[in-house]
């Protein structure tokens, strides 16, 4: 499956929005946290896991999705949310903990929920997988269209929920696609030190489903493989597992000194940053000229600026609203 020119430009645009968004969050995150870093301070407190470098995994998959399709995301959810079409303003406001946020400030950056596009998160490793399987089951039982995508990191493939969810999805032949974003690190622990097989896609065989590997963070290759897996799921072909070699350009969380990373590793990664690479490719293939791509970047920046301004200018929630929404 080859992306159309429009799809390529859509992917580029969403990747750029995602990166600009993360850059804006990163800058604001440090407000109030200097000279002494204290995670509790500033306009965006708490842990912050940025997705820089992992954008291709979001766009290559979500390019095939409709609003009614389901995505369950992780503790590192911004790129996936943006590609799925989560409202950027209300998402930014949620990350700031504002009353206008997706959940009125109750969730925060690891708990982005947008029912309009069927997007949900969990900050507990691999725990988005069961709900994705269940959503797929629900669509099947109701005879409604829709596939479920469960995003995880490679570290999650060693969690019980990973193995149970794959088996359950396969034994019930459910329309779900599991996506592993392999950024080689689970906080400070390298994949090779924690995982008994060099590549996780082989684990699909244990559950009787197709397993695919996409190398080198390539958005077009992700698009192709995900397109086939999603089409198969839609056509009652059951689940599949896709492992994507991607890269974590940021620390595990903001404030992570990353002393555990081998020297020079990050420089090598930056040289393969997927966004400049895609830009060069679009130009080389004649899919867009400089002016068109500049225009996309300008528009992306202003969309992000608008979202951030909306979040900043929104009011804090009423503190006592903490006691509401426990039950509907």
């Amino acid at each position, binding site marked *: 499956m080859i992306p159309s020119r429009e799809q390529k430009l859509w992917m580029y645009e969403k990747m750029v929005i995602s990166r600009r968004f993360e850059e804006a969050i990163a800058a604001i995150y440090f407000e109030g946290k200097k000279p002494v*870093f*204290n*995670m*509790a*301070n500033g306009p965006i*407190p*708490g*842990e912050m896991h940025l997705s820089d470098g992992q954008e291709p995994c979001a766009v290559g998959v979500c390019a095939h999705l409709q609003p009614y399709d389901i995505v369950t995301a992780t503790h590192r959810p911004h790129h996936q949310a943006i590609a799925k079409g989560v409202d950027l303003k209300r998402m930014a406001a*949620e990350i700031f*903990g*504002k009353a206008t*946020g997706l959940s*009125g*400030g*109750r*969730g*925060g*950056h*690891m*708990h982005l929920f947008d029912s309009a596009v069927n997007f949900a998160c*969990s*900050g*507990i*490793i*691999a*725990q988005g997988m069961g709900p994705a399987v269940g959503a797929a089951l629900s669509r099947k039982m109701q005879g409604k269209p829709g596939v479920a995508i469960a995003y995880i990191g490679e*570290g*999650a493939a*060693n*969690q*019980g*929920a990973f193995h149970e969810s794959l088996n359950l999805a396969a034994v019930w032949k459910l329309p779900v696609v599991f996506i592993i974003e392999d950024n080689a690190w*689970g*906080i*400070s*622990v390298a994949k090779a*030190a*924690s*995982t008994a097989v060099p590549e996780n896609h082989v684990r699909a065989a244990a559950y009787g489903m197709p397993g695919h590997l996409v190398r080198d963070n390539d958005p077009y290759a992700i698009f192709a493989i995900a397109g086939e897996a999603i089409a198969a799921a839609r056509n009652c072909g059951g689940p599949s597992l896709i492992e994507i070699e991607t890269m974590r350009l940021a620390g595990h969380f903001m*404030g992570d000194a990353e*002393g*555990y990373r081998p020297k020079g590793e990050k420089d090598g990664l930056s040289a393969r940053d997927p966004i400049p690479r895609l830009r060069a490719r679009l130009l080389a293939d004649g899919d867009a000229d400089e002016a068109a791509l500049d225009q996309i970047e300008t528009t992306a920046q202003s969309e992000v600026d608008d979202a951030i301004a909306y979040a900043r200018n929104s009011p*804090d*929630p009423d*503190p*006592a*609203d*903490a*006691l509401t929404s*426990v039950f509907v």
Partner: protein
Amino acid sequence: MADSTPIRKNERKLTIARAMAEAVAQEMRIDPKVFVMGEDIGELGGVYGNTRGLLAEFGAERVRDTPISETAFIGAAVGAAQDGMRPVVELMFVDFFGVCFDAIYNLMAKNIYFSGGTFKVPMVLMTSTGGGYSDGGQHSQCVYGTFAHLPGMKVVAPSNAYDAKGLMAAAIRDDNPVVFMYHKALQGMGWLGTEPAATVHVPEESYTIEIGSAAVIRSGRDLTIVSLGIGVHHALKAAQRLSERGIEAEVVDIRSLVPLDRATICASVAKTGRLIVVDEDYHSYGVTGEIIATVVEHDLSVLKAPPVRIAFPDVPIPFARVMEQFCLPNPDKIVTAAETMLGRDVAVTNA
């Protein structure tokens, strides 16, 4: 004990993180059966710094970074402990107990009993608790009551580095499973502010603190404030402010939830006649209710006023700072509760 943390000039102070690591290292030096497992506890030295230096000193055989597989490695700790080792395992945030609780409460906590005492389970499960820094509802909980409710595991929660070291040494030497719950806001990590009063003098030599002994860390005649972990510091701050208004609060740091030093709590309330319990865990079915029940069951007649609990309301922990701070216990809430309990005119109360 009037004061568990005597501080003299020029004595070294440690954070709870360093005190924990020192206790583990000292036990590892004298007992080759002690080893450590958990996520990011090797090279990184623990997300909360409480295993820093262990990998360098003891090597990767005894200081094991694990996959993100809590069910497997906590279950493995149970098996290793039953087979004669003394594992110290880390569950990075207590909130993650959801993915591995069977290994904890159905195995670790019950195998001694099921075996009629013929199996020992000498392991320590150390885990971080608490919020206050906007980490959202899956990374900020305490769930002390959940662990303490289920029989078969000892549970400790230190409020300062002196107690942390002594309780850790005692926990490692205990032939029973001990859950060691350390509060993030007391830990002394670089990336999160720390309550300064948690960083106290810690002797270099090894020592233990008996698990199950509370500490009366401030004496007073008018009311008793019972708490644990960060709540102890809220209580001390409130007691200071109350003292300026003529109300003398006694502060009891329970230090250990299981066993609970009920005698020390009851003796204090027998003296003061008033009780406030402060806990960052959820309000209902938890530590606060247990402590009040303990006092009421023991001798209702000593109470001059209904006991009050200050705990986290029964809602998931919200992310937004204003909402989370609204819910958390703090010194203001304690002062207000104490003033209400005693009546504002303290001079009259004490006349």
